[in-house]
Protein backbone atom coordinates (compact mmCIF):
# COMPACT_ATOMS: atom_id res chain seq x y z
CA UNK A 1 0.00 0.00 0.00
CA UNK A 2 2.77 2.43 0.87
CA UNK A 3 4.45 1.70 -2.46
CA UNK A 4 1.28 2.57 -4.32
CA UNK A 5 1.02 5.82 -2.40
CA UNK A 6 4.60 6.66 -3.28
CA UNK A 7 3.94 6.00 -6.95
CA UNK A 8 0.83 8.18 -6.86
CA UNK A 9 2.84 10.97 -5.22
CA UNK A 10 5.50 10.70 -7.90
CA UNK A 11 2.91 10.68 -10.68
CA UNK A 12 1.30 13.84 -9.33
CA UNK A 13 4.68 15.57 -9.10
CA UNK A 14 5.52 14.49 -12.64
CA UNK A 15 2.19 15.73 -13.92
CA UNK A 16 2.77 19.16 -12.38
CA UNK A 17 6.21 19.39 -14.01
CA UNK A 18 4.81 18.36 -17.40
CA UNK A 19 2.06 20.96 -17.02
CA UNK A 20 4.55 23.73 -16.32
CA UNK A 21 6.70 22.56 -19.25
CA UNK A 22 3.74 22.78 -21.64
CA UNK A 23 2.96 26.34 -20.52
CA UNK A 24 6.61 27.35 -20.93
CA UNK A 25 6.81 25.70 -24.35
CA UNK A 26 3.77 27.62 -25.63
CA UNK A 27 5.09 30.82 -24.11
CA UNK A 28 8.59 30.56 -25.56
CA UNK A 29 7.19 29.76 -29.04
CA UNK A 30 4.53 32.45 -28.96
CA UNK A 31 6.89 35.22 -27.91
CA UNK A 32 9.99 33.81 -29.64
CA UNK A 33 12.02 33.96 -26.41
CA UNK A 34 15.72 33.70 -27.36
CA UNK A 35 17.32 30.44 -26.19
CA UNK A 36 20.11 32.28 -24.29
CA UNK A 37 17.42 33.77 -22.01
CA UNK A 38 15.10 30.82 -21.57
CA UNK A 39 15.38 27.64 -23.62
CA UNK A 40 12.18 25.94 -24.75
CA UNK A 41 11.36 22.84 -22.66
CA UNK A 42 11.51 20.74 -25.84
CA UNK A 43 15.09 21.90 -26.40
CA UNK A 44 15.97 21.06 -22.80
CA UNK A 45 14.37 17.64 -23.16
CA UNK A 46 16.29 16.97 -26.38
CA UNK A 47 19.55 17.98 -24.70
CA UNK A 48 18.80 15.78 -21.70
CA UNK A 49 18.29 12.85 -24.06
CA UNK A 50 21.61 13.37 -25.88
CA UNK A 51 23.52 13.98 -22.65
CA UNK A 52 21.62 11.40 -20.58
CA UNK A 53 24.80 9.48 -19.77
CA UNK A 54 26.62 12.59 -18.54
CA UNK A 55 23.65 13.77 -16.44
CA UNK A 56 23.19 10.32 -14.89
CA UNK A 57 26.91 10.02 -14.07
CA UNK A 58 27.23 13.50 -12.59
CA UNK A 59 23.88 13.16 -10.85
CA UNK A 60 25.15 9.97 -9.25
CA UNK A 61 28.25 11.80 -8.01
CA UNK A 62 26.16 14.59 -6.46
CA UNK A 63 23.73 12.11 -4.95
CA UNK A 64 26.46 10.08 -3.29
CA UNK A 65 28.13 13.23 -1.90
CA UNK A 66 24.79 14.46 -0.57
CA UNK A 67 23.98 11.05 0.91
CA UNK A 68 27.34 10.83 2.67
CA UNK A 69 26.94 14.38 4.00
CA UNK A 70 23.40 13.63 5.11
CA UNK A 71 24.46 10.54 7.04
CA UNK A 72 27.40 12.34 8.62
CA UNK A 73 25.52 15.56 9.47
CA UNK A 74 22.38 13.92 10.83
CA UNK A 75 24.42 11.29 12.70
CA UNK A 76 26.53 13.88 14.51
CA UNK A 77 23.41 16.00 15.12
CA UNK A 78 21.55 13.09 16.71
CA UNK A 79 24.51 12.18 18.89
CA UNK A 80 24.85 15.78 20.12
CA UNK A 81 21.09 16.08 20.63
CA UNK A 82 21.23 12.98 22.81
CA UNK A 83 23.92 14.56 24.98
CA UNK A 84 21.99 17.83 25.11
CA UNK A 85 18.74 16.09 26.06
CA UNK A 86 20.69 14.30 28.77
CA UNK A 87 22.30 17.25 30.49
CA UNK A 88 21.31 20.88 30.84
CA UNK A 89 24.90 22.17 31.11
CA UNK A 90 25.73 20.52 27.80
CA UNK A 91 22.61 21.98 26.27
CA UNK A 92 23.63 25.47 27.37
CA UNK A 93 27.16 25.07 26.02
CA UNK A 94 26.35 23.34 22.76
CA UNK A 95 23.29 25.25 21.61
CA UNK A 96 25.01 28.63 21.07
CA UNK A 97 27.78 26.81 19.19
CA UNK A 98 25.19 25.10 17.02
CA UNK A 99 23.59 28.45 16.24
CA UNK A 100 27.02 29.80 15.32
CA UNK A 101 27.43 26.93 12.86
CA UNK A 102 23.95 27.56 11.53
CA UNK A 103 24.52 31.28 11.01
CA UNK A 104 27.82 30.87 9.18
CA UNK A 105 26.96 31.45 5.51
CA UNK A 106 27.74 28.29 3.57
CA UNK A 107 28.96 30.34 0.59
CA UNK A 108 31.55 31.90 2.91
CA UNK A 109 33.01 28.63 4.12
CA UNK A 110 32.63 26.61 0.91
CA UNK A 111 35.81 27.98 -0.75
CA UNK A 112 37.60 27.49 2.57
CA UNK A 113 36.59 23.85 2.67
CA UNK A 114 37.97 23.38 -0.84
CA UNK A 115 41.20 24.93 0.39
CA UNK A 116 41.33 22.62 3.40
CA UNK A 117 40.07 19.37 1.91
CA UNK A 118 41.07 19.70 -1.75
CA UNK A 119 39.01 19.28 -4.92
CA UNK A 120 37.79 15.76 -4.19
CA UNK A 121 34.67 14.47 -2.52
CA UNK A 122 35.56 15.51 1.05
CA UNK A 123 34.66 19.23 0.97
CA UNK A 124 31.29 18.52 -0.71
CA UNK A 125 30.44 15.94 1.94
CA UNK A 126 31.55 18.38 4.63
CA UNK A 127 29.32 21.16 3.30
CA UNK A 128 26.34 18.82 2.93
CA UNK A 129 26.95 17.62 6.51
CA UNK A 130 27.24 21.18 7.80
CA UNK A 131 24.01 22.30 6.16
CA UNK A 132 22.01 19.30 7.38
CA UNK A 133 23.38 19.49 10.88
CA UNK A 134 21.24 22.21 12.44
CA UNK A 135 17.71 21.19 11.42
CA UNK A 136 18.44 17.65 12.51
CA UNK A 137 19.95 18.82 15.80
CA UNK A 138 16.89 20.90 16.69
CA UNK A 139 14.44 18.21 15.64
CA UNK A 140 16.27 15.43 17.47
CA UNK A 141 16.60 17.52 20.61
CA UNK A 142 12.94 18.56 20.70
CA UNK A 143 11.95 14.99 19.82
CA UNK A 144 13.98 13.41 22.61
CA UNK A 145 12.53 15.91 25.06
CA UNK A 146 8.98 15.29 23.83
CA UNK A 147 8.56 12.03 25.77
CA UNK A 148 5.37 12.01 27.85
CA UNK A 149 6.26 12.82 31.48
CA UNK A 150 3.67 10.45 32.90
CA UNK A 151 5.22 7.64 30.88
CA UNK A 152 8.68 8.62 32.14
CA UNK A 153 7.33 8.45 35.69
CA UNK A 154 5.76 5.07 34.98
CA UNK A 155 9.05 3.60 33.78
CA UNK A 156 10.91 5.17 36.69
CA UNK A 157 8.62 3.52 39.23
CA UNK A 158 9.52 0.21 37.60
CA UNK A 159 13.17 0.91 38.28
CA UNK A 160 13.97 1.36 34.58
CA UNK A 161 17.43 2.79 34.00
CA UNK A 162 18.07 6.01 32.08
CA UNK A 163 19.26 3.91 29.15
CA UNK A 164 16.09 1.84 29.16
CA UNK A 165 13.92 4.95 29.27
CA UNK A 166 15.97 6.36 26.40
CA UNK A 167 15.58 3.24 24.29
CA UNK A 168 11.97 2.36 25.09
CA UNK A 169 10.49 5.84 25.36
CA UNK A 170 12.65 8.76 24.25
CA UNK A 171 13.81 7.43 20.89
CA UNK A 172 10.38 6.22 19.74
CA UNK A 173 8.86 9.52 20.93
CA UNK A 174 11.45 11.36 18.85
CA UNK A 175 10.78 9.42 15.63
CA UNK A 176 8.15 11.78 14.17
CA UNK A 177 10.54 14.67 14.76
CA UNK A 178 13.46 12.75 13.29
CA UNK A 179 11.50 12.13 10.10
CA UNK A 180 10.53 15.76 9.65
CA UNK A 181 14.17 16.67 10.30
CA UNK A 182 15.25 14.12 7.71
CA UNK A 183 12.85 15.55 5.12
CA UNK A 184 14.29 19.04 5.56
CA UNK A 185 17.89 17.84 5.75
CA UNK A 186 17.66 15.66 2.66
CA UNK A 187 17.01 18.55 0.28
CA UNK A 188 19.54 20.71 2.07
CA UNK A 189 22.17 17.99 1.63
CA UNK A 190 21.65 18.09 -2.13
CA UNK A 191 21.98 21.87 -2.18
CA UNK A 192 25.10 21.59 0.00
CA UNK A 193 26.72 19.13 -2.38
CA UNK A 194 25.97 21.37 -5.38
CA UNK A 195 27.38 24.44 -3.61
CA UNK A 196 30.51 22.43 -2.82
CA UNK A 197 30.87 21.42 -6.45
CA UNK A 198 30.25 24.95 -7.59
CA UNK A 199 33.24 26.29 -5.68
CA UNK A 200 35.71 23.80 -7.10
CA UNK A 201 35.19 20.36 -8.52
CA UNK A 202 35.71 18.27 -11.61
CA UNK A 203 32.58 16.17 -11.11
CA UNK A 204 28.92 16.51 -10.17
CA UNK A 205 25.84 18.45 -11.21
CA UNK A 206 27.17 21.60 -9.56
CA UNK A 207 30.16 21.44 -11.85
CA UNK A 208 27.87 20.93 -14.88
CA UNK A 209 25.79 23.95 -13.86
CA UNK A 210 28.93 26.04 -13.25
CA UNK A 211 30.40 25.29 -16.68
CA UNK A 212 27.04 25.74 -18.39
CA UNK A 213 26.70 29.14 -16.77
CA UNK A 214 30.10 30.24 -17.99
CA UNK A 215 29.24 29.11 -21.54
CA UNK A 216 25.64 30.38 -21.48
CA UNK A 217 24.72 26.80 -22.31
CA UNK A 218 21.22 27.01 -20.90
CA UNK A 219 19.77 23.72 -22.11
CA UNK A 220 22.26 21.60 -20.15
CA UNK A 221 21.95 23.99 -17.20
CA UNK A 222 18.21 23.42 -16.99
CA UNK A 223 18.75 19.73 -17.65
CA UNK A 224 21.07 19.50 -14.65
CA UNK A 225 18.61 21.43 -12.47
CA UNK A 226 15.81 19.07 -13.50
CA UNK A 227 17.93 16.02 -12.68
CA UNK A 228 18.67 17.54 -9.29
CA UNK A 229 14.96 18.13 -8.72
CA UNK A 230 14.19 14.55 -9.74
CA UNK A 231 16.73 13.22 -7.24
CA UNK A 232 15.22 15.42 -4.54
CA UNK A 233 11.66 14.30 -5.26
CA UNK A 234 12.68 10.64 -5.34
CA UNK A 235 14.60 10.96 -2.07
CA UNK A 236 11.61 12.65 -0.44
CA UNK A 237 9.32 9.90 -1.65
CA UNK A 238 11.62 7.26 -0.17
CA UNK A 239 11.68 9.04 3.20
CA UNK A 240 7.92 9.55 3.05
CA UNK A 241 7.36 5.84 2.42
CA UNK A 242 9.73 4.90 5.24
CA UNK A 243 7.94 7.37 7.52
CA UNK A 244 4.51 5.90 6.80
CA UNK A 245 5.88 2.44 7.43
CA UNK A 246 7.73 3.21 10.67
CA UNK A 247 5.18 5.65 12.10
CA UNK A 248 2.07 3.63 11.28
CA UNK A 249 1.01 4.13 14.91
CA UNK A 250 1.28 7.91 14.67
CA UNK A 251 -1.94 9.93 14.35
CA UNK A 252 -0.49 12.01 11.50
CA UNK A 253 0.60 8.91 9.59
CA UNK A 254 -2.86 7.46 10.13
CA UNK A 255 -4.54 10.62 8.92
CA UNK A 256 -2.56 10.97 5.69
Amino acid at each position, binding site marked *: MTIRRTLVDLAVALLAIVGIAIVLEIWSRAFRVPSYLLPAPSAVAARMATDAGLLAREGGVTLSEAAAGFVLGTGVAFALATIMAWSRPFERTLFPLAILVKLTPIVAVAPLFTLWFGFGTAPKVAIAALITFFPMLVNSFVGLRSA*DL*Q*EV*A*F*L*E*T*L*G*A*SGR*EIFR*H*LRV*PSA*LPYLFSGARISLNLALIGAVIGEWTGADRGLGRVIFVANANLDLTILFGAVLVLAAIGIAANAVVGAAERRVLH*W*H*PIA*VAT
Partner: protein
Amino acid sequence: MSVAIALHRVSAGYSGPVLRDIDLEVANEVVAVVGRSGSGKTTLLRLIAGLLEPTSGTVDLLGVPPAIARRRKRIGFVAQDARLHPWRTVRQNVTLPLEVNRSARTNGHVSPDEWVARMGLSESIDAYPHQLSGGMRQRVALARSLVIDPEVLLMDEPLASLDELTREDLRDELLRLWEGRPRSVVYVTHDIEEAVLLADRVVVIGGHRPARVRGEVAISLPRPRTKALRREPRFHDLVEEVRSLLA
Protein backbone atom coordinates in the same frame (compact mmCIF):
# COMPACT_ATOMS: atom_id res chain seq x y z
CA MET B 1 0.16 -7.05 59.41
CA SER B 2 3.25 -5.41 58.04
CA VAL B 3 3.20 -1.80 57.00
CA ALA B 4 3.91 -1.42 53.28
CA ILE B 5 3.91 2.36 53.06
CA ALA B 6 4.96 4.56 55.94
CA LEU B 7 5.26 8.33 55.76
CA HIS B 8 6.49 10.01 58.91
CA ARG B 9 6.10 13.78 59.30
CA VAL B 10 6.84 14.32 55.63
CA SER B 11 7.02 17.77 54.10
CA ALA B 12 7.68 18.34 50.43
CA GLY B 13 7.39 20.87 47.64
CA TYR B 14 8.88 22.18 44.46
CA SER B 15 9.73 25.89 44.46
CA GLY B 16 7.31 26.41 47.34
CA PRO B 17 6.04 24.00 50.02
CA VAL B 18 3.12 21.80 48.93
CA LEU B 19 2.73 19.25 51.74
CA ARG B 20 3.53 19.58 55.44
CA ASP B 21 3.86 17.02 58.23
CA ILE B 22 2.06 14.19 56.48
CA ASP B 23 1.75 10.97 58.48
CA LEU B 24 0.38 8.00 56.60
CA GLU B 25 0.57 4.25 57.01
CA VAL B 26 -0.83 1.75 54.56
CA ALA B 27 -0.85 -1.99 55.22
CA ASN B 28 -2.59 -4.37 52.85
CA GLU B 29 -5.53 -2.05 52.42
CA VAL B 30 -6.90 0.51 50.07
CA VAL B 31 -6.40 4.07 51.22
CA ALA B 32 -8.09 6.76 49.21
CA VAL B 33 -6.56 10.23 49.39
CA VAL B 34 -9.11 12.93 48.74
CA GLY B 35 -8.49 16.61 48.27
CA ARG B 36 -9.34 19.52 46.04
CA SER B 37 -7.50 19.98 42.75
CA GLY B 38 -4.03 21.32 43.37
CA SER B 39 -3.99 20.23 47.01
CA GLY B 40 -0.88 18.11 46.51
CA LYS B 41 -2.40 14.68 45.90
CA THR B 42 -0.13 13.92 42.97
CA THR B 43 2.84 15.26 44.90
CA LEU B 44 2.02 12.75 47.63
CA LEU B 45 2.13 9.89 45.11
CA ARG B 46 5.42 11.13 43.68
CA LEU B 47 6.79 11.16 47.23
CA ILE B 48 5.72 7.59 47.88
CA ALA B 49 7.16 6.43 44.56
CA GLY B 50 10.42 8.21 45.35
CA LEU B 51 10.14 10.44 42.29
CA LEU B 52 10.34 13.40 44.65
CA GLU B 53 12.55 13.72 47.73
CA PRO B 54 10.88 15.04 50.90
CA THR B 55 12.29 18.26 52.31
CA SER B 56 11.88 16.72 55.76
CA GLY B 57 10.56 13.52 57.27
CA THR B 58 10.95 9.95 56.04
CA VAL B 59 9.25 7.75 53.50
CA ASP B 60 9.50 3.97 53.80
CA LEU B 61 8.27 1.52 51.24
CA LEU B 62 8.25 -2.14 52.27
CA GLY B 63 10.80 -1.24 54.94
CA VAL B 64 13.26 0.45 52.58
CA PRO B 65 13.58 3.88 50.94
CA PRO B 66 11.37 4.24 47.82
CA ALA B 67 14.36 4.33 45.48
CA ILE B 68 15.33 0.82 46.54
CA ALA B 69 11.75 -0.49 46.41
CA ARG B 70 11.60 0.90 42.90
CA ARG B 71 14.72 -0.94 41.86
CA ARG B 72 13.19 -4.12 43.27
CA LYS B 73 10.19 -3.51 41.00
CA ARG B 74 7.61 -3.52 43.76
CA ILE B 75 5.57 -0.50 42.72
CA GLY B 76 2.71 -0.31 40.26
CA PHE B 77 1.66 3.11 39.00
CA VAL B 78 -1.50 4.09 37.15
CA ALA B 79 -1.84 7.67 36.01
CA GLN B 80 -4.86 9.62 34.85
CA ASP B 81 -5.37 9.40 31.10
CA ALA B 82 -2.42 7.08 30.47
CA ARG B 83 -0.89 7.80 27.10
CA LEU B 84 0.66 4.30 26.99
CA HIS B 85 3.33 3.71 24.35
CA PRO B 86 1.55 4.45 21.06
CA TRP B 87 4.05 2.43 19.01
CA ARG B 88 3.29 -0.71 21.00
CA THR B 89 0.25 -2.93 20.72
CA VAL B 90 -1.89 -3.70 23.77
CA ARG B 91 0.08 -6.87 24.42
CA GLN B 92 3.42 -5.12 23.94
CA ASN B 93 2.34 -2.35 26.32
CA VAL B 94 1.48 -4.91 28.96
CA THR B 95 4.78 -6.77 28.56
CA LEU B 96 6.82 -3.54 28.73
CA PRO B 97 7.30 -3.68 32.53
CA LEU B 98 8.85 -7.13 32.10
CA GLU B 99 11.31 -5.80 29.52
CA VAL B 100 12.86 -3.11 31.71
CA ASN B 101 14.87 -3.51 34.90
CA ARG B 102 15.22 -7.22 34.19
CA SER B 103 17.56 -7.87 37.11
CA ALA B 104 14.68 -7.39 39.56
CA ARG B 105 12.66 -10.49 40.19
CA THR B 106 8.91 -10.08 40.09
CA ASN B 107 6.35 -12.34 41.73
CA GLY B 108 4.01 -12.21 38.76
CA HIS B 109 2.31 -15.54 38.25
CA VAL B 110 -0.29 -14.18 35.89
CA SER B 111 0.85 -13.89 32.29
CA PRO B 112 0.49 -10.63 30.34
CA ASP B 113 -2.07 -12.27 28.05
CA GLU B 114 -4.08 -13.36 31.08
CA TRP B 115 -4.08 -9.81 32.44
CA VAL B 116 -5.29 -8.54 29.10
CA ALA B 117 -8.04 -11.16 29.22
CA ARG B 118 -9.04 -10.22 32.77
CA MET B 119 -9.40 -6.63 31.64
CA GLY B 120 -11.71 -7.79 28.87
CA LEU B 121 -9.34 -6.74 26.11
CA SER B 122 -8.49 -10.08 24.50
CA GLU B 123 -10.05 -9.04 21.22
CA SER B 124 -7.95 -5.89 21.10
CA ILE B 125 -4.69 -7.50 22.16
CA ASP B 126 -2.96 -6.64 18.87
CA ALA B 127 -4.54 -3.18 18.55
CA TYR B 128 -2.58 0.04 18.97
CA PRO B 129 -3.55 2.61 21.63
CA HIS B 130 -4.91 5.09 19.07
CA GLN B 131 -7.47 2.45 18.10
CA LEU B 132 -8.79 2.18 21.68
CA SER B 133 -11.30 4.23 23.66
CA GLY B 134 -10.21 6.09 26.78
CA GLY B 135 -11.72 3.40 29.01
CA MET B 136 -9.89 0.64 27.16
CA ARG B 137 -6.61 2.55 27.44
CA GLN B 138 -7.06 2.84 31.21
CA ARG B 139 -7.69 -0.91 31.36
CA VAL B 140 -4.40 -1.44 29.54
CA ALA B 141 -2.73 0.93 31.99
CA LEU B 142 -4.13 -1.14 34.82
CA ALA B 143 -3.02 -4.42 33.26
CA ARG B 144 0.52 -3.20 32.64
CA SER B 145 0.82 -2.01 36.25
CA LEU B 146 -0.38 -5.34 37.60
CA VAL B 147 1.73 -7.58 35.39
CA ILE B 148 4.63 -7.35 37.84
CA ASP B 149 2.20 -8.15 40.67
CA PRO B 150 3.32 -5.18 42.79
CA GLU B 151 2.85 -5.10 46.56
CA VAL B 152 2.24 -1.37 46.31
CA LEU B 153 -0.17 0.13 43.83
CA LEU B 154 -0.27 3.90 43.36
CA MET B 155 -3.17 5.32 41.42
CA ASP B 156 -3.49 8.96 40.39
CA GLU B 157 -7.13 9.68 39.50
CA PRO B 158 -7.17 6.74 37.11
CA LEU B 159 -10.84 7.17 36.21
CA ALA B 160 -11.07 10.96 36.14
CA SER B 161 -10.97 11.36 32.37
CA LEU B 162 -13.59 8.70 31.61
CA ASP B 163 -17.31 9.00 31.02
CA GLU B 164 -19.66 8.04 33.86
CA LEU B 165 -20.70 4.59 32.61
CA THR B 166 -17.15 3.51 31.78
CA ARG B 167 -16.08 4.78 35.17
CA GLU B 168 -18.70 2.63 36.90
CA ASP B 169 -17.55 -0.46 35.02
CA LEU B 170 -13.96 0.16 35.94
CA ARG B 171 -14.84 0.80 39.59
CA ASP B 172 -16.39 -2.67 39.72
CA GLU B 173 -13.26 -3.99 38.06
CA LEU B 174 -11.07 -2.36 40.72
CA LEU B 175 -13.23 -3.72 43.56
CA ARG B 176 -12.94 -7.26 42.22
CA LEU B 177 -9.23 -6.71 41.73
CA TRP B 178 -8.36 -5.89 45.30
CA GLU B 179 -10.96 -8.13 46.80
CA GLY B 180 -9.30 -10.99 44.88
CA ARG B 181 -5.83 -10.23 46.14
CA PRO B 182 -5.19 -7.68 48.88
CA ARG B 183 -2.55 -5.09 48.13
CA SER B 184 -1.41 -1.84 49.59
CA VAL B 185 -3.14 0.73 47.42
CA VAL B 186 -3.00 4.49 47.55
CA TYR B 187 -5.85 5.78 45.43
CA VAL B 188 -5.87 9.50 44.76
CA THR B 189 -9.14 11.05 43.66
CA HIS B 190 -11.26 14.17 44.02
CA ASP B 191 -14.44 12.10 43.73
CA ILE B 192 -15.72 11.53 47.28
CA GLU B 193 -18.23 8.81 46.41
CA GLU B 194 -15.61 6.94 44.45
CA ALA B 195 -13.28 7.12 47.44
CA VAL B 196 -15.91 5.78 49.83
CA LEU B 197 -16.92 2.99 47.46
CA LEU B 198 -13.40 1.74 46.82
CA ALA B 199 -11.41 2.35 49.98
CA ASP B 200 -10.95 0.90 53.46
CA ARG B 201 -9.95 4.33 54.70
CA VAL B 202 -10.32 7.80 53.25
CA VAL B 203 -7.66 10.35 54.10
CA VAL B 204 -8.52 13.96 53.43
CA ILE B 205 -5.76 16.44 52.70
CA GLY B 206 -6.17 20.14 52.16
CA GLY B 207 -6.06 23.57 53.67
CA HIS B 208 -4.02 26.52 52.52
CA ARG B 209 -0.70 25.57 51.02
CA PRO B 210 1.16 23.65 52.28
CA ALA B 211 -1.60 21.04 52.67
CA ARG B 212 -1.89 18.82 55.72
CA VAL B 213 -3.95 15.78 56.64
CA ARG B 214 -7.31 17.19 57.68
CA GLY B 215 -8.79 13.97 58.88
CA GLU B 216 -9.53 10.36 58.19
CA VAL B 217 -12.68 8.30 57.82
CA ALA B 218 -12.69 4.52 58.25
CA ILE B 219 -15.00 2.89 55.71
CA SER B 220 -16.44 -0.11 57.51
CA LEU B 221 -18.71 -1.16 54.65
CA PRO B 222 -18.51 -4.92 54.10
CA ARG B 223 -16.78 -6.46 51.11
CA PRO B 224 -17.35 -7.60 48.46
CA ARG B 225 -18.94 -4.31 47.53
CA THR B 226 -20.97 -3.42 44.48
CA LYS B 227 -22.24 -0.19 43.07
CA ALA B 228 -25.64 -0.98 44.67
CA LEU B 229 -24.00 0.18 47.88
CA ARG B 230 -24.35 3.73 46.68
CA ARG B 231 -28.09 3.63 47.36
CA GLU B 232 -27.68 2.78 51.04
CA PRO B 233 -27.99 5.42 53.77
CA ARG B 234 -24.78 4.23 55.46
CA PHE B 235 -22.91 5.04 52.29
CA HIS B 236 -24.30 8.55 52.22
CA ASP B 237 -23.46 9.14 55.86
CA LEU B 238 -19.84 8.27 55.12
CA VAL B 239 -19.79 10.48 52.04
CA GLU B 240 -21.13 13.37 54.12
CA GLU B 241 -18.52 12.72 56.79
CA VAL B 242 -15.72 12.97 54.21
CA ARG B 243 -17.32 16.01 52.64
CA SER B 244 -17.41 17.84 55.97
CA LEU B 245 -13.68 17.22 56.38
CA LEU B 246 -13.03 18.67 52.93
CA ALA B 247 -15.07 21.84 53.39
